[in-house]
Structures are given as structure tokens and as C-alpha cells.
């Protein structure tokens, strides 16, 4: 599983960081980004889905599996 945060949609609610600090980082202006290239280790997939389901701006998306 791979995820990304759309920086144009993110408004800094920091819900993803609160739920899954292993997967997200937040800068001083509140904008979230994924840690590394957004690859989610299998044991954190449930947390990633939780973050996706709680973002009030629908800013987190799961990327389609690569070729």
C-alpha cells in the first residue's frame, strides 16, 4: 500500500498525524506529508486507512499499485 497527501487539499487539521504519526509528518504551517515515499508497511495499513477515513479535507489518497 502507498499513500500520498494532496498539499493543495490539506488544510492542516493534523488528524492523520494524530492517528498515525509513523506515516505522516506536519510542518510548522500545519501541512501534512507522508514519511518517505508513502509506502505503508503491512502492519500499519489499518492506521493508514483510518487516516484516510478521518481527513476532513479528503486530502489523503491511496495510490494505485505500480506496474
Amino acid at each position, binding site marked *: 500500500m502507498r499513500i500520498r497527501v494532496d498539499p493543495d487539499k490539506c*488544510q*492542516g*487539521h*493534523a*488528524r492523520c*498525524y*494524530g*492517528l498515525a504519526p509513523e506515516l505522516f509528518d*506536519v*510542518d*510548522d*504551517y*500545519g501541512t501534512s506529508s507522508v514519511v518517505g515515499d508513502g509506502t505503508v508497511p503491512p502492519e500499519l495499513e489499518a492506521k493508514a486507512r*483510518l487516516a484516510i*477515513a*478521518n*481527513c*476532513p*479535507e479528503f486530502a489523503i489518497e491511496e495510490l494505485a499499485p505500480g506496474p
Partner: protein
Amino acid sequence: MTTTRPVSDWTSDFDVMDPDYVRSPFETWRMLRESCPIAHTNRRGSNWLPTRYEDVTAIAHDIEHFSSIEVGVIPFDGEEPDEPVLAYGLPPISADPPLHTWTRRLLLPWFSHRRVEGYEDLTRQLCRRLIECFVEDGRADAAADYAQQIPVRVISHILGVEEDLSDTFTGWVREVLEFADDAERSLHGMEGLLNYFVAEVERRRRGPGGDLLSELLRTEVDGQPIDDSIVMGAAALVLIAGIDTTWSAIGSSLWHLATHPEDRRRLVAEPEIWPLAIEELLRAYSPVTMARIVTGDVELNGCPMKAGDRILLSFPAANRDPEVFERPDEVVLDRAHNRHVAFGAGIHRCAGSNLARMELRVALEEWLAAIPEFRLEEGAEVTWAGGQVRGPRQLPVVFP
């Protein structure tokens, strides 16, 4: 407070200051969502009240048609001074881009995750001191003696203003927000705040410190210092926005825990659910409604909105929409899917949300650690404020 005419038709003549609505708006929102999801009234001008999540968030995101130039739920109906001290209002909350964008960026780092962690200790110590004052009494007013005392002191610390003046600040803020339909009182509150900040700006000019106000005065934008009225507006905003909003969330949460023993005990027994529980309490008891002004005639879901109309963006109503939340009127402490908008949505997302969340969590943690069992005092009255910010103002509880 002025009295309100009774409401007979909530779809076309609503009044958010109606005493029954202030006490409990939930049934009204449910009825409106099902019959007339964007209600209208001509009380205090032409106002619209969207109650569905989809409409509330759509309007919050549409900054072209819905301006933040006035965000007060109750319009000021007194005489405006000829030369207002705050020529730009309270930026960034009462601003649209571009003023919104750069003033918001000045404030955001003060409320970042990292900074807020640094305020946690003093918040915790403050909560403990407050609890010590009443824990032996077996009773307390959880709103007046506790919830109302916390945010104003934390914000005072951040702004670098005297903690001793907390009661005075609180008085001004209540006059501005809770007595907004009393022009004389709201003006008195605003003047109090402004005169204070005018003096504080002068004091910082003579001896700057490491506080937010000093930092704003030091900051240059495009090689120019920031206009004094913007500095004061932003500082006044930080004070106003962080006081009764957060104390209302703390107070409502304590009201919930006083009246729901199973949730109270669950929080003590299952500390791992706290992060979800805090979000759930924020969802169910979202305190804040913000207004927008329609910039040009526009139709939304069949409602003909005219330029100048006011939209009351009820984030609290959005957060109880059954289309988005299962069993919306129930508090489910470990609710996993909770896309709530207690802090708004779009570019005006509450800049202090990290701080508010920390204060709410620490206030509840410390309360439950010292007073795990408590209930409403029988025969004593719980009173609520509403309009812009909903929360309990008197919350007598006992813990014998």
C-alpha cells in the same frame, strides 16, 4: 441579554439565540435536515442556516461566493466608529486572500504541533492548581471554576500578557461574543480589548520580548513593518478565538462525562481510546459556528442567496449529519470514522486547533485523574451560552 421572540417556523424564521435552541439545538437540526436543510430567517438581516455536512463544507470551501469579511453570527447593530482602530478587522479570520494568506502564515507556527507540545506542561500544572482549589469541597462549578479558567491563561502566556488580567480578558471576550446582540455591551468589550492592545503594543516597542505580540511587531512584510491595526487585530483574534471556544469544548465534555457514567469509566479504564475519544467529543459538542457573507447573488440547492446575506456555518450541525456519521446523536468514544469539522474546513481551518485539542485532552485527563466519579448537582441549574459558541456557563457537579 435581549429577549428573543418565540420561533414558530424554524425553516423560515429561525433564531439561533432562542433559549431552547441554545440549550439543545440537536432536535431542530434533525428536523431542518429532513424538511428544509438550508433554513432562512430575516431576524437580524437576511440569514441562512445550512444544517447538512455537504452544504456546510461546500460553503466553507467556496471562498469566491462566501466571504469571511464578517464572521460574527450576530451582526453588530450599533454605530460603527468613523475611523475604526482595526481597519482590517481580526485577520486572518475576518479576511479573504491575499490578506488572509500572509497573516495566517504569521500565526500558524505559534500553534504548530511542536510549539503546542511545549505548552503542555504549563497547562497540566494549571489544571492541577485549579483542581486543588475545590477537590476537597466535594462540589464545583466545572464550567466557571475549571473550564473557563484554562484557555485564557494559556493564551495569555503565548501572547506575553499578564495572567492576572485573565478575568478581565474573559469578561471582554464574553461581551464581544455572548452579548453580541447587545450593541452597547459588545462595543464595551471590544473597546476594552483594543485599549489594552494599544497599550501593549507601545510597551513592546520599548522592550520587546519573545512573545507573539513582540514577534508580530518585529516582522516585516515586503520590507515594511506590519500595519499596527493588523498586529492588534491578529493579537486580539488570538485572544478572542482561543478563550470561550476551548472552554466550551472542555465544559461540554465534562457535562457529557457527568451525565454518562459508562463513558466516564471507559475513559479511565481504556486510556488507549483517548485520541479517538477527544475527536468524538469535539464532533458531538462542537462549539463554534462561523458566518460568511454572500459576495454576489448565488443559488445553492435551490436557495436564492443575495449579495450581503449572512450564512451561519453551523459546523456543529454538520457534525451530526446522519449522511456522514452513523448514530450521529450518540457519543461513541472509539468512533473510528470521524471526518468531523469542529475546527471548520477549507482555508480558515482553526489555526489554534492543535492547542485546543491539547488543552481539552489535558483538562479531561487531569480532571479524571483527580475526580474519576462525579455527577450533576441535583436541583442546581446548568446554563448554556450559544449563538457563535455553544457550551455550558454554569455546570455544578458533585463528587462526594
